[in-house]
Structures are given as structure tokens and as C-alpha cells.
């Protein structure tokens, strides 16, 4: 095992500062469209995203640079406030630009490609500690698969980015071209906390408050993990890896137990599964740690981590967002050294082949 003090941060956000920043990366047709029409997503709020004013951009209040650059837009400030501050060996960027939710489908496809090219020029080439996820128009699986194959040629793209609230559950055949391309390129599929579809964002309908949106995000992850397992995605793509990012992990044991129980009764419905549902976790799934689970009795955290599997969790900060986990303070208990090494860097090395 390598340097035990190493730290790999598996969830960091770089932010496109303006629509104009993407113009050099858009074909003339879509540059013109961007200027004259602009982005229209299918999220149902008139005035953009529904994160509350209490946390503008969902960001830490100290993440604006001294020069006034918005959080996640300034590489130098990200180096200073994150990479250097915590001596981070690698950080995985997840750029949450809203290209996958663009209503004009070919424009969304062009936007995703533009974001990826912008990431190469402004983040990946200038800073070798940074790696990134490929942003894809996941509701348009054929061009999404093409974008995966295009970006996989650049060694700093280490993952494919999906969001957990999709038009259909992610195990559905519609999305399989994405998994085929990811498996072929050896890139894990990362599903990252985000919350815009035309469908209600909780299993009980549209909520009133952000605290509900944030808390219930784990339910979207549960639905997607369940769908990917029972639809047979891992049986059809045995080399495919899945990373659940910012969805928590306290719900994993009860979900898998329940899934196994129902499977015993209903396995004739899903004869394509070669294993019990819970058995897919160990070989196919990694989970990032932020927002860290905080059991009322801190010692229960170690029990939970062992139940989820010592090889499963990968540390993440979610910089520059307000619910950032500080690597020095995120765990309420001292982890055993081998477990700490696994979570802070070794599991990420295994997952992303760092």
C-alpha cells in the first residue's frame, strides 16, 4: 500500500462561470443559439434552480476568491483553498453544468461537449492533480455514448457523470448504450447528487423545502441502485463500475437486506440475475463519503462502514459547497489505520486506476 497519509478527494466542483465561457467550444450554430435563446431546462421553476438564497450557489461563503470570482470558477483559488490546504494528491472534478437537462436535445449534446473541452483547457491541462468526469447528455444515450468514447481518449477523464433523478430509472434498456461505452472505455459510471427532472423529486411528490430535497436525495440513489442491479446491467456489463457520489451510505445495509428478501420471493421475475442483489455491491459499487453519516452514537459509524464494506467508501469533500466535509474533521470517531487508508485514498486508486 502506498503513502498512508495520502488523500484523494473524489468529489470537487468546477463551475462554468458564464454561458459565454463555453462559446469558444460551441459550433457557430449553437453559439448563435446560446446568444439568442439560451439555456432552457425542463426543471419546473421559473427562476432557475431551487437552491435557497441561504446558500447562494449551494456554496461555502468563504469560497468566493478575494478577486470576487464565484465558487469553483478560479483554478488558483481552488489550488490554494483545497488542493494545497489539504495536500490532496488527486481530486475528481464533477462539473454539474445543466447540459443533460437542456430541452433542446442537440443543443444539450453540443453543450456537454463544450463543457468537456472547456474542462480540458481550463482545469485538466493546467493542473495535473485534477481529474474529471465526462459530462454527458444522458437522456440522449446515443450521442452520450459517442461523447464518452471521444473524451476517454484524454487520460484525465476518469469517470462518466450521471444525475440520480432521471426521466426513467437508470437500469432501463434506453440507457444501456451509455454503460456499453463506459465499460468499453474502462470508465466508472458516477451518479452525483443533483435534482432536476420534470418528475417530482421525492417519492412522495414535490416538497416545499430544500431540507426535504437534500434529505430525500438518498431515496433517488436507492431507486437507481436498485434499478441498475435488478435490470441486469452488471450481468450484461461485468466490468462496469458504479460510483454513488453524495448520496450517503447509511441506507445501504437496510436496502440490500430488503432487496435480498424480496428477491428470494420474486426471483422468477428476474431470472437474468446471476447473484443475489446484495452481492453486486462489492464487485461493482463504490460510494463517496460526503455528506458523512453522523450516527447519534459515533461508534456506530465503524459498524456501518464495515457493513457497507471496507473496500466500498472513498473520501470526498464536495468543495466548494456549503456541506463540505473537512478531511481533518469529517469522521466523528478515529478509524482503524487500515480502514482509514482505504477510505482516504486506496479505494479511489483501485476504482480510478490512479
Amino acid at each position, binding site marked *: 500500500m502506498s503513502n498512508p497519509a495520502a488523500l484523494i478527494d473524489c468529489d470537487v466542483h468546477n463551475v462554468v462561470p458564464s454561458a459565454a465561457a463555453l462559446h469558444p467550444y460551441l459550433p457557430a450554430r449553437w453559439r448563435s443559439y446560446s446568444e439568442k435563446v439560451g439555456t432552457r431546462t425542463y426543471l419546473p421553476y421559473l427562476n432557475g434552480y431551487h437552491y435557497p438564497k441561504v446558500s447562494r450557489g449551494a456554496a461555502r461563503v468563504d469560497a468566493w476568491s478575494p478577486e470576487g470570482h464565484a465558487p469553483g470558477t478560479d483554478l488558483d483559488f481552488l489550488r490554494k483553498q483545497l488542493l494545497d490546504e489539504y495536500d490532496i494528491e488527486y481530486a475528481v472534478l464533477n462539473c454539474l453544468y445543466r447540459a443533460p437537462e437542456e430541452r433542446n436535445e442537440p443543443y444539450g449534446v453540443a453543450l456537454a461537449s463544450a463543457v468537456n473541452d472547456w474542462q480540458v483547457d481550463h482545469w485538466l491541462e493546467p493542473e495535473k492533480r485534477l481529474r474529471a468526469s465526462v459530462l454527458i447528455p444522458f437522456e440522449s444515450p446515443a450521442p452520450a455514448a459517442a461523447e464518452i468514447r471521444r473524451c476517454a481518449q484524454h487520460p484525465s477523464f476518469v469517470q462518466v457523470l450521471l444525475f440520480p433523478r432521471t426521466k426513467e430509472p437508470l437500469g432501463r434498456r434506453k440507457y444501456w448504450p451509455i454503460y456499453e461505452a463506459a465499460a468499453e472505455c474502462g470508465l466508472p459510471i458516477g451518479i452525483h447528487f443533483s435534482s432536476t427532472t420534470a418528475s417530482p423529486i421525492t417519492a412522495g411528490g414535490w416538497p416545499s423545502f430544500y431540507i426535504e430535497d437534500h434529505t430525500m436525495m438518498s431515496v433517488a440513489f436507492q431507486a437507481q441502485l436498485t434499478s441498475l442491479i435488478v435490470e441486469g446491467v452488471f450481468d450484461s456489463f461485468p466490468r462496469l463500475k458504479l460510483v454513488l457520489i453524495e448520496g450517503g451510505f447509511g441506507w445501504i*445495509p437496510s436496502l440490500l437486506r*430488503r432487496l435480498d428478501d424480496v428477491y428470494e420471493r420474486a426471483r422468477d421475475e428476474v431470472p437474468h440475475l446471476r447473484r443475489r442483489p446484495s452481492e453486486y455491491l462489492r464487485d461493482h459499487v463504490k460510494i463517496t463519503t460526503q455528506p458523512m453519516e453522523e450516527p447519534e452514537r459515533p461508534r456506530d459509524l465503524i459498524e456501518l462502514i464495515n457493513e457497507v464494506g471496507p473496500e466500498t467508501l472513498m473520501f470526498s469533500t464536495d468543495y466548494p459547497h456549503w456541506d463540505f466535509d473537512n478531511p481533518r474533521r469529517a469522521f466523528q470517531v478515529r478509524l482503524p489505520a487500515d480502514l482509514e487508508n482505504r477510505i482516504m485514498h486506496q479505494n479511489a486508486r483501485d476504482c480510478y486506476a490512479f
Partner: protein
Amino acid sequence: LVLAESGVAWLPSLMWRLDKNWRGLRREIPWLDAPPSQVIRDHVKLTVAPFDGPPDAEGVRRLVEQIGSERPLLYASDYPHWHRRDPGESLLRHLSEAERANVVRNNALELYRLDAPVFSPHSPAGLDERSSVGCFSTGAGRAGERSMRRQP
């Protein structure tokens, strides 16, 4: 609030997450002046069929401690439906006698006031607190030996 056939094992992690988010976001919902876990413990009961807790005694013990006690748990058979894990086998046998008595009987007696004085057409005492929600006694014996039903 009673959650029926919902499972129970997911509750601790939801309470942890709600409490953590309440600490970070309570400005948004200032009328909630107690941690959500406390609201849940004060107001929520859950039936235990199907039981989705750990398979071992130690795991069940830890789950009950994380929920806070066995007081929110209500026995249910879910008759005539079938589940792979019967609550008797998977949960009740791992509880102490007192805990088991609460889950199979006392928690429900208290919640539904099954042994409270009730209005009965046969009772000369007439109205009492139950009558305001339109409940009628259906006969003797339901509340068992601790019956407080008024004598005619």
C-alpha cells in the same frame, strides 16, 4: 403517525441525516425547534412486518438501540399477505420479555387507547373522550385484564 408495512431498519439513518441537515438548514424551517429525530420518537410508530433488520441478535439489538427503544414498534402479521421473514422469528425472539410485551401488545394498547374508557350504547355513563372521535365499544374482553371499562 403510524407507518404500516414500511420496514423499520431505514429509520436510524434517516434520523441521522435529518438531524444533520436540520443543524445546517434550520433557518429554513424555524418552527421546528427540536431535532427531527425527537419529533419522530415522540410521534411515529412503525409496524414490523416485514421485518428488515439484521439477521443476528446483536444486529437487532443495535437497531433497537438506534431507534431509541422498542416503543415505536407495533407487531403486525400483515395477514393474509406473506413475507419471507416473520417478525416472530426475525425480531421478537431477540428481544427481552418486557420489550417483547411492548411490541406485541402494550405499544398498540397505548397508541390506540384500546383499554381506555369508551362510550358504549350500553353504558349509562354516556360520553367520554373516545366518543368525540366517533368510536364505539364492540364488546367486552378486547382490552384484556387491565380493562377500565365502566360497569353498567
